């Protein structure tokens, strides 16, 4: 059973502001039935352009309902400029915290608010450049990046807890790792276990370690998605691999896949490993 705070339980058992505002000024819809949670937020402004009424309808677990209820309480009385600044942390904080695995519920609240404000302003669904990274849950690179920055996320698991991205078939894991790396750069990522200083591998040991790491850490998750990887050769610190039949549903770019393999090998074999791809 999840450890919910009393505040979460209260807002789940006695949700505030359930329903749809009539003749709403703004409507925001996020999530989906397929993904297991969805939220429709509606609000109305008063003559001073402050949010007079905000209501929600939510499909989802207890924390999704509680987060929606909290959101409507938080934004009531705010101007849109103020409401825009509400973060998912504010929602979680209002509820006295959420289990980390449930943080995506608070992110969904913030997204619904944003969508509703955009809807009021008549902004077209922001046509900025984005790419759907996680097809299982329809999560874009922009959403992932934002969650990473706003919540200081450093691991792939955290990204999944906060956005759901990567919680399904796992095919997008390399892409999520790549976004994490892009945001923090290599230095800021939590220090990977560096091989003890002074450890000098013989060639034979290195080959064995590379093979072991591929078999244990890298190939099984790829196989689970219909992909595969073959070790072609090792020359000094350069590891040559060939990619085979990647998951047809989630076309991960070979670039990020290569990066993923490289970062794993650097973690377990040595920091100087370079991965090169051999075309069949």
């Amino acid at each position: 059973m999840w450890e919910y705070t009393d505040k979460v339980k209260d807002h789940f058992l006695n949700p505030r502001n359930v329903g749809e505002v009539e003749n709403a000024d703004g409507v925001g819809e996020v999530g989906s039935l397929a993904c297991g949670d969805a939220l429709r937020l509606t609000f109305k402004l008063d003559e001073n352009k402050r949010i007079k009424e905000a209501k929600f309808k939510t499909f989802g677990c207890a924390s999704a309902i509680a987060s929606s209820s909290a959101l409507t309480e938080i934004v009531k009385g705010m101007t849109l400029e103020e409401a825009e600044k509400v973060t998912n942390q504010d929602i979680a904080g209002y509820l006295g915290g959420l289990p980390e695995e449930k943080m995506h519920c608070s992110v969904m609240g913030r997204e619904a608010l944003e969508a509703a404000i955009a809807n009021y302003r008549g902004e077209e669904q922001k046509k900025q450049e984005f790419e759907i990274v996680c097809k299982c849950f329809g999560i874009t690179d922009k959403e992932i990046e934002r969650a990473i920055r706003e919540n200081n996320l450093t691991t792939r698991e955290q990204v999944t807890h906060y956005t759901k991205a990567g919680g399904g078939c796992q095919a997008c894991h390399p892409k999520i790792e790549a976004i994490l790396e892009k945001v923090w750069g290599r230095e800021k990522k939590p220090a990977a276990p560096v091989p003890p200083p002074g450890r000098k591998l013989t060639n034979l040991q290195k080959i064995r370690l590379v093979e072991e790491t591929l078999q244990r850490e890298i190939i099984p998750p790829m196989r689970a998605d219909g992909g595969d990887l073959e070790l072609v050769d090792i020359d000094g610190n350069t590891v040559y691999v060939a990619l085979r039949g990647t998951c047809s549903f989630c076309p991960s770019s070979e670039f990020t896949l290569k990066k993923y393999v490289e970062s794993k090998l650097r973690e377990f074999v040595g920091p100087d490993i370079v991965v090169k791809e051999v075309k069949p």
Partner: protein
Amino acid sequence: MRTVYLDNNATTRVAPEVVEAMLPYFSELYGNPSSMHFFGGQVARKIAEARERVAALLNADPSEIVFTSCGTESDNAAIRGTLESYPEKNHVITTRVEHPAVLNVGQYLRARGYRVTELGVDRMGRLDLDELRDAIDEQTALVTILYANNETGVIFPIEEIGEIVKARGIPFHTDAVQAVGKIPLDMAKSHIDLMSLSGHKLHAPKGIGVLYIRKGTKFSPFFIGGHQEGGRRGGTENVPSIIGLGKAAELAIEHMDEENGRVRALRDRLEKELLDRIPNTLVNGDRDNRLPNTCSLSFEYVEGESILLLMSDQGICASSGSACTSGSLEPSHVLRAMGVPFTAAHGSIRFSLSIYNTDEDIDWVIEKLPAIVERLRDISPFWKDYKEGKPISSLMAGIHPEHTRHR
């Protein structure tokens, strides 16, 4: 508050008779059954008796009963112990709806170079036996197929499967954790070579299991140690629990008719009433081939964890295959393998009964649950849309629904 416990496929109450039978073995009768003296010897005799009782429940020979620590150990021992006996073979056949104790062993084997075929199921959770026939080849070392599904209660045609497998001379294991004690089993007339069961699913305590190994079956022990369990599982016996399981097996034989009569009738009434009272409710799984105690329902447009928590507020204990409760972000692998539509998969609830349930228990659920579902549907953005005939696609943005089920 009233407690209505309908989660017996998760675990059961230890029968009071079982507790009573166990107690002396914590205190006065603490001898080690392997000891030479009379003090240990009397315990050894009681363990032999418990073994006979478990054998009687399965109509097996006592020498075919190996006590283990749980169902998961039995599954691991059966699969890995068999593969070790056939090192020249590299193929295993199983299904997509196994318990994680088998499913994840499959993943583990795959990572070590084994080919693992997972047979699919249809919308009712049934296997296609032709798919099994086609999957068997020269390299197949083991077929391991669930007896009865823990989520839906669907019973596989295990003897038919066993016949197919044995005709090709291949060892056959079944995880019967949910079946033992609920439906009659007869090993004397069976094709099963190895079978796992777990004590706490049949009113014995947690931490005790059995691996049935038919005489003449190749098996390499998984736990290597002393000569206990005929050398097939080292480690000092969990004496009180073994005694408890023996008692539970005896009670299971006594209660078999009640399980398939009164308990089945309670389950059927619960199911029928809920279907009548709550619109847009579906039954998951083949209703004609089901455990007598299990019922999996899906309430469309609401989410399972919310239902569970509101039920829990009324003292009702059940479980759900929804994403939020499966510990992942996707609905249970069983419902996904069955292709339960996503409108329903997230709102699945499993009720599993036992002989301790009463008519009043069922009345309570029938009284409370309709209001709970209605309340959540009022909060759900989909229900009104659905009622008004609007397409539900408005909240599908950015999603490739087919993708949520590609595994």
